[in-house]
C-alpha cells in the first residue's frame, strides 16, 4: 500500500492524509469544482457559519471510511481477506477502491447541492436524475477515468459505479458499500458532525470515534460480510440516529431554510434552459457562477419575471412567513387538512401570496424494529465479555421509539409582520374547521 504523504488540515477530523495518486484526483477539474459548492446550499442565510463545502465533506468521508475499514481490518482481517479473495480482490485493492469511491461520491453535486437537483432532466422512467448518476457520469468522463485506471487498477471505474449504486453488487462487496451508504456510514458520520460544527449547533454531534472503535465484520447470512458492533458501541449508534433526527428538525428542514430552498428551486427552474441534458455540462456551473446570475437577476428584470422575483428574495433575504405547520409526522389526513386550509386562505385573502410546502419529507432511519410491519436493517452485536452474539433489535429499545420517517407540512404567507398575528389566528380557525369536516 502506498504511503500517504499529502495532508489536509480538517476542522473536524484533524489531519487527513492522501497518497500522491489521490492528490491527482483531488486536483482534477471535476473535484476542484466542489470547493465552490456549499454543503448546505443557502442555509447560511439562517445559520451564518454554514459556509462549508462539498470539498471538505468529501475528504472527511474518505477519512472516516478508511478508519472504519482499518478497524475491520484490525479486528476481522482474516474474514475480510477471505471474503474479498472470492471475487479476486486483495485487501489493499479494496481499500483503495473504498477511498476513491468515498472521495468521489459527491463529485456530481449540482450548484447548491440538493437545492439544485430540481433542474436535472428526468430519467426514461420519469424519476428525477440523482446526483449519484451525475457523479458516475463524471467518473466515467475521460479526465477522472484515465487518472483512476492509471493510478489505481484496471477496472476500478466500473467498480466505483457499482458501489455508487449502478448495477448489482456481488454480496462480497456489500461490506464496502455499507461503509459509504448504510445505516452508519462514513457519509452520515461526517456530515452530521461537520454540519453541526459549521452551523454552530450541537444537535449533530455524537461520539463517532467510539463507534469506529467498536466496528468489526461477521459472516452474513446474506452472503459476504456484514458490519457488526461491539456491545459498547450501541449507545453511540443510538446517539447518531437521534443526531439525525434533531438535525432534520433544527437544520435540514428548518422553516426559514426550507423557504429559501423553495425560492432557489423556483429560481433555478426559471434559470435552467435544458443545459443538463448532457450530464457532463453540470461541470460548467458551481455556486459562484449561479450566484453571479442571481445577483444580476436581482438587479434587473431583463431575464424573466420569475428569475427577478426569486433572485430578489434570495439577494435581499426577504421571505414568506410560516402561518401554519403540522407536527413532524404528517400523514394523509394532515395533508388533506393542510391542502384544504391553504385553498380556503387563497379564496379569502386574494391579495396575499401563499406557498404550501408539502415535500419536507425524509427517512430518519431504516433499522429493524421488533414487531414492525416493515423489514429493516438488523445488525449483529458482539459482547466482548461473554463472547456471545445478539441482534441490535434485542439490545436497544431506542430505535423503536423514533419514527422511521419525517414529514412536516407548512403554509407560508407573504405578509408584513403587523398582519401575521391576525392571519395566523384566522388560519387556525380555518384549520380547525377543516379538521372537523374531513
Amino acid at each position, binding site marked *: 500500500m502506498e504511503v500517504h504523504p499529502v495532508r489536509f488540515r480538517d476542522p473536524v477530523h484533524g489531519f487527513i492524509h492522501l497518497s500522491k495518486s489521490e492528490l491527482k484526483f483531488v486536483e482534477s477539474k471535476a473535484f476542484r469544482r466542489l470547493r465552490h459548492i456549499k454543503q448546505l446550499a443557502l442555509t447560511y442565510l439562517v445559520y451564518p457559519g454554514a459556509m462549508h463545502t462539498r470539498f471538505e465533506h468529501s475528504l472527511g468521508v474518505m477519512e472516516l471510511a478508511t478508519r472504519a475499514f482499518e478497524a475491520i481490518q484490525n479486528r476481522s482481517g482474516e474474514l475480510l481477506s477471505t471474503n474479498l479473495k472470492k471475487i479476486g480482490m486483495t485487501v489493499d485493492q479494496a481499500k483503495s477502491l473504498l477511498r476513491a469511491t468515498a472521495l468521489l461520491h459527491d463529485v456530481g453535486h449540482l450548484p447548491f447541492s440538493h437545492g439544485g437537483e430540481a433542474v436535472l432532466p428526468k430519467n426514461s422512467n420519469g*424519476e428525477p436524475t440523482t446526483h449519484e448518476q451525475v457523479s458516475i457520469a463524471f467518473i466515467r468522463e475521460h479526465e477522472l477515468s484515465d487518472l483512476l485506471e492509471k493510478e489505481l487498477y484496471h477496472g476500478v471505474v466500473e467498480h466505483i459505479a457499482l458501489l455508487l449504486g449502478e448495477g448489482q*453488487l456481488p454480496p462480497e462487496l456489500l461490506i464496502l458499500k455499507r461503509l459509504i451508504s448504510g445505516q452508519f456510514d462514513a457519509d452520515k458520520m461526517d456530515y452530521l458532525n461537520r454540519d453541526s460544527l459549521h452551523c454552530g449547533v450541537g444537535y449533530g454531534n455524537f461520539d463517532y470515534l467510539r463507534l469506529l472503535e467498536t466496528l468489526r465484520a461477521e459472516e452474513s447470512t*446474506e*452472503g459476504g460480510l456484514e458490519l457488526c458492533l461491539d456491545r459498547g458501541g450501541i449507545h453511540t449508534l443510538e446517539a447518531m440516529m437521534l443526531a439525525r433526527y434533531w438535525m432534520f428538525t433544527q437544520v435540514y428542514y428548518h422553516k426559514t431554510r426550507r423557504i429559501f430552498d423553495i425560492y432557489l428551486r423556483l429560481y433555478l427552474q426559471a434559470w435552467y434552459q435544458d443545459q443538463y441534458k448532457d450530464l457532463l455540462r453540470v461541470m460548467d456551473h458551481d455556486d459562484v457562477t449561479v450566484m453571479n446570475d442571481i445577483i444580476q437577476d436581482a438587479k434587473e428584470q431583463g431575464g424573466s419575471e420569475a428569475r427577478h422575483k426569486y433572485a430578489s428574495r434570495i439577494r435581499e433575504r426577504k421571505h414568506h412567513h410560516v402561518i401554519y405547520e403540522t407536527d413532524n409526522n404528517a400523514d394523509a389526513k394532515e*395533508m388533506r387538512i393542510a391542502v384544504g386550509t391553504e385553498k380556503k386562505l387563497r379564496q379569502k385573502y386574494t391579495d396575499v401570496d401563499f406557498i404550501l410546502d408539502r415535500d419536507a419529507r425524509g427517512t430518519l432511519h431504516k433499522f429493524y424494529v421488533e414487531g414492525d410491519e416493515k*423489514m429493516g436493517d438488523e445488525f449483529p452485536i458482539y459482547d466482548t465479555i461473554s463472547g456471545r452474539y445478539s441482534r441490535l433489535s434485542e439490545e436497544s429499545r431506542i430505535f423503536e421509539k423514533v419514527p422511521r420517517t419525517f414529514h412536516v407540512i407548512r403554509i407560508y404567507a407573504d405578509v408584513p409582520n403587523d398582519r401575521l398575528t391576525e392571519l395566523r389566528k384566522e388560519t387556525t380557525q380555518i384549520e380547525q374547521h377543516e379538521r372537523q369536516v374531513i
Partner: protein
Amino acid sequence: MAATAQGQMFFADKIADALLAYLIKSYTEASGRTLGRTILQKLCYFAKASGVPLPFRFEIYHYGPFSQEIFYRTDDLLLDGVIEDRSSDPAQSNFAPGSNLDPFLSRFGEAIKQHEANLKRVAMMFSHLDPTQMELVSTIHYIHSSYSEWFKKVPDKDAVVTSVVQIKGRKFTIQIVEKTYDILRDATLLP
C-alpha cells in the same frame, strides 16, 4: 396512518408508482390471491430484470434480492388508497387493489401500455410460486447476474450454485439449488 378518501391522491404520483400498482393488480388477477411483501419484492426484481424501468436498487438480503424503497412506495400507494393491505397482523402484509386503483392507473395509461405485457408476463410466470420458492429463484438470478457483471463473463453453474448454497444452505439442499438453476437456465431466465 389514515388513508386518503376516494379520488384524492397526494403521495403516489410517479410512473414507478403506477407500474408497481399495475404489477400488484396483475398478480392478484393471475393468482387469485393477495400478495405479501416477499412476493412483491421478488416480482419487482424480476420485472426490473426483464426491462421494466423500475427505479428500485436491489441488494441481496435475508430473503433474496431486496429494495427498501419498495416499502416507501407501497406506503404511498396505501395512503392514497391505490392498494389496500388486508392483513390484520402488522408484521404481515396482504396487498390487494384499492378503491383508487383504476383512477390512479388511468393517469399513466401510456407508460402502463408500454410495459403491460412484461408486467403481466412476470406476474403470470411466478403466480404459482410460494415466498420460499421465490426467495430461491431470485437469489440464484441475483448471484448469476452480479457475478456476470463483476467478472465480465457468464459464470459457470458451479460458481453460482456454490455461492447460493453458502448463503441459503440452511434452507435449501444443493440438489434443489442445482435443479432450480437448471429450470431457470432452460427457461432462458438467466442473463
